[in-house]
């Protein structure tokens, strides 16, 4: 007699747990850019602590992965380090993308220590394109040390890559087809460049720690090299600045709206600053790509 009783209790409590889960506040699923990720993760942790909202944050597929997940209904909020493109809107005609800028980030070209110490401190656009297309295969050709060029390409289609390709070729779609070793997340990019002599990659400047990987200054048409520091980015002088976005399908509602509110509020903006990005007030409102 005892056994069935216990089984029944178990079954009932399992059922109760299921019902409880259904009645609890809905989960907000956030997916996309590894650049935006640390800010949202901390904002989500604070919100969950204070309000009990469940927020799941995932970086599978980067910005484009997040946008696809949003359009597909697998996420309520997409994180993106590139704006929603005309191509996105064409591909997902039924999704009403509502991008909200939450901060500004500089995209840096970072190199390994041996290059930095070997005198590679800045690049112009032509040199960057030559490196990307493999027309320059040794750093000596650019006045650096005698070392083969190892270009770790951010996976094409990710936000960082699109901004980089847009800068070089006007439009990411016009970028030539190349096959380079690829890196995905910011952590992976940083660790691989740090451990490979002669390496360069495209990486959010906030992740260039100046100890293992080093952000190059970019030389514009004027010729003066401009480092991706907060001042140059805020003034709009650094060419590879970009806004960071949270995107919803239609205006944000419910728990998703509270997440956006938090990130745009003073505490969220403080998180943006603490992770090395520029808060909106310090230049986010200006016209960045």
């Amino acid at each position, binding site marked *: 007699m005892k056994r069935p009783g216990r089984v029944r209790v178990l079954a009932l409590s399992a059922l109760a747990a299921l019902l409880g889960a259904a009645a609890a506040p809905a989960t907000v699923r956030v997916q996309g850019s590894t650049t935006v990720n640390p800010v949202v993760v901390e904002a989500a942790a604070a919100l969950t602590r204070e309000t009990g909202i469940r927020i799941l944050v995932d970086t599978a597929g*980067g910005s*484009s*992965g997040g946008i*696809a997940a949003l359009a597909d209904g697998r996420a309520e909020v997409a994180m993106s380090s590139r704006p929603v493109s005309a191509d996105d809107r064409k591909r997902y005609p039924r999704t009403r993308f509502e991008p909200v800028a939450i901060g500004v980030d500089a995209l840096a070209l970072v190199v390994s220590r041996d290059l930095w110490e070997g005198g590679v401190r800045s690049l112009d656009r032509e040199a960057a394109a030559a490196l990307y297309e493999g027309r320059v295969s040794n750093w000596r050709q650019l006045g650096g040390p005698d070392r*083969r060029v190892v270009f770790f390409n951010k996976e*094409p289609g990710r936000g960082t890559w699109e901004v980089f390709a847009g800068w070089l070729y006007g439009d990411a779609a016009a970028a030539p087809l190349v096959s380079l*070793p*690829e890196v995905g997340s910011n952590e992976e990019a940083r660790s691989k460049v740090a451990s490979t002599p002669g390496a360069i990659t495209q990486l959010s400047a906030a992740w260039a720690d100046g100890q293992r990987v080093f952000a190059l200054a970019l030389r514009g048409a004027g010729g003066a090299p401009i480092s991706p520091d907060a001042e140059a980015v805020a003034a709009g002088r650094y060419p590879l600045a970009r806004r960071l976005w949270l995107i919803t399908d239609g205006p944000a509602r419910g728990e998703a709206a509270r997440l956006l509110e938090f990130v745009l509020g003073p505490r969220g903006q403080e998180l943006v600053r603490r992770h090395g990005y520029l808060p909106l007030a310090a230049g986010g409102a200006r016209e960045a790509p």
Partner: protein
Amino acid sequence: MRGRRDPLLWWSGAATLLAAGFGLSMLALFAVESLPVWRQEGLGFLAGSRWFYRGGEFGALPMIYGTVAAAAVALAVAAPLGLGAALFTAEVLPASWRMAVKLPVELLAGVPSVVYGLLGLLLLRDWVYRLLRPFDPLSGDTLLTAGLLLAVMILPTVMTLADDALRGVPASQRRAARGLGLTGAEAAWGVSLPRALPGLAAALLLGLGRALGETIAVFLVVGRQDNQLPERLLSLAPLARPGQTLTSKLGGAETFIAWGDPLHWGAICGLGLVLLALVVGLTLWSGRLLEARAGRA
């Protein structure tokens, strides 16, 4: 014999149907989803050497090559180690010591593959980079690195199954061999090994299957460079270069980007289908070998 109305019969029958259904519908799903790419590329999808999704070109051969090359390295390293260790545990070690050796090896099987990947990223990449210095490698991300990492990962599979196969040879036959005056080593070579051969082959094939399907660990150390089909297929030089495997491509950002574009998505599903076919083929083959063993024992 149980009656037709016995619930056990119905339940087990339904379970079998469902299990088989899952497998078949998965194959069917990948086949249907990949139709657009077969329609555009035909068999060129398998034989084509160019993959540029932004240019609408989808040729999977470099990835098939990468998968096979990394798995071959893994097997070349894991086979002698695994079979050797199994021979020792099954034929030489006293039974009471056997577990003391097998346990740590089997622990390796329980380590999550992302942990292997991170170890590969932290240690193996640098080690391979230094090892390959004389050949001036670009970085530590190479097919060789991926293969070596896979070798460690499939070692427990190979060793445990090979050990089981050897232990499956009846002790009476060993005793008979010893009774005829053969030494322990001669009995192992002359009796145990030949009798266990199908089981040993199955151990290798199952290890190979795991190597083909492993994703995240390979993803982190293989370099993920597309279109790396070597000019000479049997040359060893491409192993020192970065490459792309079917799984590292499927685990990358393209899978997410492809969603929504029928052709690109079809190509990604086509890669999944090829991988599935490879692994299913190997599994069936090793299953037949194991059956052959069971039939002879």
